């Protein structure tokens, strides 16, 4: 409702809630409603998708209220549960509104507030309500300190068609001694009370580097940022809140491994070797769960590819769920293990302080821009060279290897893209994506095919699956084989598109950052 002005919030130190209500009522000739208590849970995804889409979602009891941030208007009110839910598990109306916003992420409580509030209303000569005032006392923040005693929140709730009256009331309130405009909304305050900040996490890598800074400083920034991402996702991975926690965790691990490999002479040599090994272990222990997450997420595609009914594939679905739970329990155990604890703790110490005392590698003093130039050029050339060497008869390993090189190039561009002309770097990333999609399709269908064969054998062995299921799995295997074949055939075209002179020129242009 675009015509509704946004609510204005104030903080007030004018006595207790009933005292404040009484004095405002008298000072501004308002009429008073009942005092009521409520507990509000604010919900968002871990990476604030609801907030970034311009909404706030609050749950009071089983009532969900979606508010537009710009106008303060309620966009949707629905009953039902949303906490801990994925888009497909939400009440229908909310799903319609937020499904695309949430993607694969679950709604989680980001803050809880217990409030006591009193509504005051201003009426005009016709006794019509023209403005509402909500005075709230925060009783306690969930998991945090109690708010300062005597500090109240006053919100002028806008009414459509009565903006002028709302503004007038706001102005009157602002003039009352002890009342001042709030610098944060109640929502932001509640989030801060839960130990977070609105918008404090995105899955994107955000490092601010200077190409002239010594590599030892730059890698510190990169590693710390990636470590922070792993740590931020740790709890969500352990609790399996949604599949994106593990996804982001794995990407951070892979980027760390890639940096360790590509920027190998920056860290002390011994540490270098140890952490390449340890982060490989960390990546490996997350793989089984991620694979099963992916199978479960793409299950509808499986069903379609196998032209199977839900009943036909139900035994497979049950098996995938069981396996996912089992592998996830193992993963959660590994994240509680001494090995993991030591890895994270000692890695943090290394990149923060110890590298300096242990003696940096020989490239530590080199400007990071020089290293970036060198690595991007070398890895980029390797991508062009090994891609060009692949023919229709080349073994699958060639494509797998090329896929790895592409990932390395992609990460280098993500770390250091900011050193170069943005169009050039992004143009190359865009071209690379097309090629990576093809290579991903090729490898994923191979891996999935293999896995499906394994599941079919397991189902056959325990004798639980009917013939229809096994036949459907056979068709699914066939479909995956066909997909892999198609990706293999498409490769030549995709690579040709990537290897165009324009992209070679882009790669050549990604230089000079170190000078």
């Amino acid at each position, binding site marked *: *409702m*675009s*015509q509704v002005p946004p609510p204005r919030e104030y903080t007030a130190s004018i006595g207790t809630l009933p005292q404040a209500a009484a004095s405002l009522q008298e000072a501004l000739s308002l009429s008073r409603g009942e005092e009521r208590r*409520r507990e*509000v849970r604010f919900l968002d995804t871990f990476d604030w998708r609801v907030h970034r889409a311009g909404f706030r979602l*609050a*749950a*009071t*009891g*089983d*009532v*969900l*209220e979606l508010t537009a941030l710009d106008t303060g*208007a309620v*966009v949707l*009110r*629905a*009953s039902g549960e949303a906490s801990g839910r994925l888009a497909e598990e939400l*009440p*229908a*109306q909310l799903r319609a509104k937020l499904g695309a916003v949430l993607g694969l992420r679950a709604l989680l409580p980001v803050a809880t507030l217990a409030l006591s509030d009193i509504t005051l209303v201003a009426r005009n000569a*016709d*006794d*019509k*309500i023209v403005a509402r005032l909500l005075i709230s006392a925060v009783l306690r923040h969930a998991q945090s300190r109690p708010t300062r005693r005597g500090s109240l929140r006053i919100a002028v709730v806008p*009414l*459509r*068609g*009565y903006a002028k009256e709302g503004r007038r009331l706001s102005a009157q309130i602002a003039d009352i001694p002890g009342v001042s405009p709030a610098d944060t909304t109640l929502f932001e305050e509640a989030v801060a009370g839960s130990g977070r900040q609105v918008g404090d996490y995105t899955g994107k890598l955000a490092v601010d580097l200077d190409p002239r800074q010594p590599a030892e400083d730059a890698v510190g920034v990169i590693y710390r940022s990636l470590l922070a991402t792993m740590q931020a996702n740790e709890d969500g991975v352990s609790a399996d809140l949604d599949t994106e926690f593990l996804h982001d965790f794995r990407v951070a691990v892979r980027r760390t491994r890639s940096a360790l490999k590509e920027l190998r002479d920056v860290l002390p040599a011994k540490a270098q070797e140890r952490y390449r090994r340890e982060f490989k272990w960390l990546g490996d222990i997350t793989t089984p769960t991620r694979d099963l997450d992916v199978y479960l997420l793409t299950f509808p595609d499986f069903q379609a590819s196998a032209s199977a009914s839900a009943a036909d594939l139900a035994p497979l679905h049950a098996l995938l769920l069981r396996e996912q739970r089992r592998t996830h329990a193992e993963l959660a155990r590994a994240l509680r293990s001494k090995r993991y604890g030591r890895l994270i703790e000692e890695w943090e110490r290394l990149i923060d302080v110890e590298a300096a005392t242990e003696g940096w590698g020989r490239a530590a003093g080199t400007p990071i821009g020089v290293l970036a130039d060198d690595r991007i050029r070398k890895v980029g050339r390797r991508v062009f060279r090994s891609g060009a060497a692949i023919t229709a008869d080349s073994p699958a390993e060639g494509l797998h290897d090329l896929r790895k090189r592409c990932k390395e190039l992609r990460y280098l561009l993500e770390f250091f893209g900011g050193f170069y002309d943005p169009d050039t770097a992004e143009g190359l990333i865009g071209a690379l994506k097309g090629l990576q999609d093809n290579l991903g399709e090729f490898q994923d269908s191979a891996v999935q095919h293999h896995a499906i064969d394994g599941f079919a054998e397991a189902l056959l062995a325990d004798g639980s699956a009917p013939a229809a299921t096994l036949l459907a799995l056979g068709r699914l295997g066939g479909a995956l084989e066909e997909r892999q074949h198609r990706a293999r055939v498409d490769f030549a075209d995709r690579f040709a598109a990537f290897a165009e002179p324009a992209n070679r020129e882009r790669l050549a242009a990604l230089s000079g950052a170190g000078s």
Partner: protein
Amino acid sequence: MKTLATYNIKGGVGKTSAAVNLAALAAADGVRTLLWDLDPQAAATYLFRIRPRVKGGARSLISGRRDLEDAIKSTDQDGLDLLPADFSYRNMDLQLDDVKRPARRLRRLLQPLAGDYDLIVLDCPPSISLVSENVFAAADLLLVPLIPATLSERTFDALTEFVSQIDGPRPEIRAFFSMVDGRKRLHAEVMTSLRARYSIVLSTSIPAESNVERMGLTREPVVITHPQSRASLAYAELWQECRPLLQLAEATPRSAT
């Protein structure tokens, strides 16, 4: 977004009363509702204590110079807004005649409100005119209050005949008996005879009750002031009959934060 219109060629049959009370019940049901008082007499507007005035009048709304949104006022009830009447609505026919595809103008004007409201309730002036033609084209459900008197049948026949001639999507038509006096034998007879003839007469009938008349004094819907009165219970029943016909999304609660 669905549209419900209360309409009768005759005046004084309980149109506004039905529009106002059904809108209030819908809002209480969690349905985000906008009531558009199209009647220049502005009775619905008055009942919500809102000034019957739209800047620029009917002309600015119909021509599209002014967005409907800008004229909307919130009522004292959560989830219920009102687009007020204006005296200039008496000339709405002429203004409609000036635009392209005049019979579908209201429908088009309402479309941008789909994100804001689940239900539009149109309270229409009594007449057959370009305004009513517009209402028929815009409405999903046309609700016709009938006083159970001998002429009602003819009025209803004329209306169904008229609606059946509309090009394009036509509204569902339902009638209900209004201002029913349980003591009058004629009322009972007419109701029995019409129900036997038409399947589209709803089973709820609204009793004639002083509380309904007193709405002009209390300036609030009777379902709010006297929710347990016979008339209010009847409106609630009427809303329960209308709701499935409108195929609104699932029921939602009244208020949260």
